[in-house]
């Protein structure tokens, strides 16, 4: 059984004078442990797809099964609980709470869980992204790459099955972008399913599968044959 099974999913936006099919009959299935890169031009529907995958948005038509369960039958609160336990989000603009320390940002998903050891877990997640010593720093005191690593710590703190990253390196220099990718690859090796939206063809090669989407439709969907290792790429950058 696949982790993600999307069948004929449509999402249409209506503006005053035009209609946009952000997703037009998208069928996609992703197995446990895959690392999928989604590429496509601006406005092609990548973020919309990720929102539907993350249950933040509901499709107009078509079905979406996550771990075999049809999420369209879930209530808003059931979806919130599902996101809390199963899904981690990473956004292009980090989306950290301002004037809030790194550790408190990482704790955010935990306060809506029934975990009791939340500051321990948050500390471990921060250590995992190499920021153990920045726990009490606020976002304003961190570099962009560090902020995104805090965001990744927040995404993985609840031990999710699925991490959805929407252009996590879009606002970062290439080195910081590679660091983010290295962390995602690392998590994927441990069994976390990763879906990554990216413009960057080089970064897309670090996934195990590449999906291209144009005008809300899947144009191509193929395994990455010349897969690259982010840690190796980092080393190459360091040498240069």
């Amino acid at each position, binding site marked *: 059984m696949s982790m993600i099974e999307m069948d004929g999913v449509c999402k249409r936006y209506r503006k005053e004078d035009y209609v946009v099919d952000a997703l037009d009959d998208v069928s996609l299935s992703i197995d446990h442990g895959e690392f999928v890169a989604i590429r496509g031009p601006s406005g092609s529907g990548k973020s919309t797809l990720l*929102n539907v995958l*993350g249950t*933040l*948005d509901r499709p107009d038509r078509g079905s979406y099964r996550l771990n075999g369960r049809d999420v369209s039958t879930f209530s*808003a*609160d059931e979806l*919130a*609980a599902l*996101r*809390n*336990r199963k899904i981690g*989000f990473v*956004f292009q603009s980090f*989306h950290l*709470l301002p*004037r*809030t320390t790194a550790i*408190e940002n990482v704790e*955010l*998903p935990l*306060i*809506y*869980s029934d975990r009791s050891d*939340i500051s321990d877990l948050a500390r471990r997640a921060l250590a995992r992204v190499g920021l153990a010593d920045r726990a009490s720093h606020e976002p304003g005191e961190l570099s962009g790459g560090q902020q995104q690593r805090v965001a990744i710590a*927040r995404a993985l703190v*609840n031990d999710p099955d699925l991490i959805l990253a929407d252009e996590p390196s879009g606002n970062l220099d290439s080195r910081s972008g590679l660091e983010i990718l290295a962390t995602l690859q690392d998590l994927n090796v441990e069994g976390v399913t990763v879906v990554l939206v990216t413009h960057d063809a080089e970064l897309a090669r670090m996934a195990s599968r590449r999906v291209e989407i144009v005008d809300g439709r899947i144009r191509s969907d193929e395994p990455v044959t010349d897969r690259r290792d982010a840690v190796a790429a980092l080393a190459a950058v360091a040498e240069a």
Partner: protein
Amino acid sequence: MKISRAITSSLRALTRHKLRTFLMMLGTLIGVTALTVVMVLGRGTQDAVMQQVERMFSGSSIILTSGSGMRRGGPHGSGPTTTLLPADIEAIEEEVPAVLVADRLQGLGRSEVAFEGAAADVRVLGHSQASPEVWNRGANRGSYFSEADVATSARVAVAGTTVVRTLFGDLDPIGQQIRIGTVPFEVIGVLEPFGIDPHGLDKDNEIHVPYTTVMRRLRNVDYIAASKILVDPDADLDATAAAIEELLRARHGLAAGEPNDFRLITPTQVREMIASSNSTFGVFLPIVALIAIIAGGAVVANLMLLSVNERRFEIGLRKAVGARTRDVWWQFLLESTAVTTVGGLLAIGLAILTLGFIRIHGMADFVFPWAVTLVGLGVAVLVGLAAGVLPARRAARTDPIDALR
């Protein structure tokens, strides 16, 4: 979500926006302080008034005044006020069995009273020798005047403590000669202190003289203004009042259908009158305080709405990472309630200071009812909950995708 986590999360959000939190607190502070002060003063005043009424009607008694109609709230009598005679009161004492004793009253009103160089503006009241028993207020130095003084219209006076202070200072007042208008009197006693009556009159700025002296020597009239009649506590007051009414109507030759040319007031009537006349503290000020509270609540609600609009991204993020609708509700209800609760606590402190100031400066006397502080705190909590409802609802309805875009 655990309640302790919800509270911590809300408190952190509040400390992140200090100015807004401060303004919200100020909103509650003003309203709850006003309410607490008004409640304490209102209750204190009511208590004081009731206490004095009890004192006025100590035992069981009826007040008789000349003139007809209602003194307050109703048509004022147009009948003569010269028909109530000392003989009427004697008749009441003799012919109505339940009547124990009666005081007679005839006053001079505010008059200039002089002692050597000093002068004072004092209320001069004529009483009978029964006054100490009837009013429960006699002389605590020297003595009250006697039946003989009344019979002879003696020029003797019993002075209140305010009068004594202004006229004599440290001098012993007993035996001193004063003038009421142009008539010389000898001070034979000092009235027991009483304080301020419900109408704000200083009951210690009085001089009591025999009513007969007021009639003959000061005003040259043959009638009295009023009487307070002490009734056997075992007797039925209403029946006694009816008997007095019948007797007086007969003595005054009133035909059936003619209105009374006197009025009988029983304690029940007075209590009702006071309850209805206490409207300044009873109705008006509480309304003002209520408006202050509602305005404070509106301030809190508006600032919370502002906060929700500013924090759309935060709310969206919280929902994306797993906050359920009720978690968001709690977040904002707790924020507004925490603010108003702290505001309420500060308000109680401020109210205590304000009331202390009022008491020290003698503007009003009251006991501080601690229950009122609990009411103030309760109101603050309720205001917080009420003010949080709309903001919390708006927050809970935030669409995370919209908010995170």
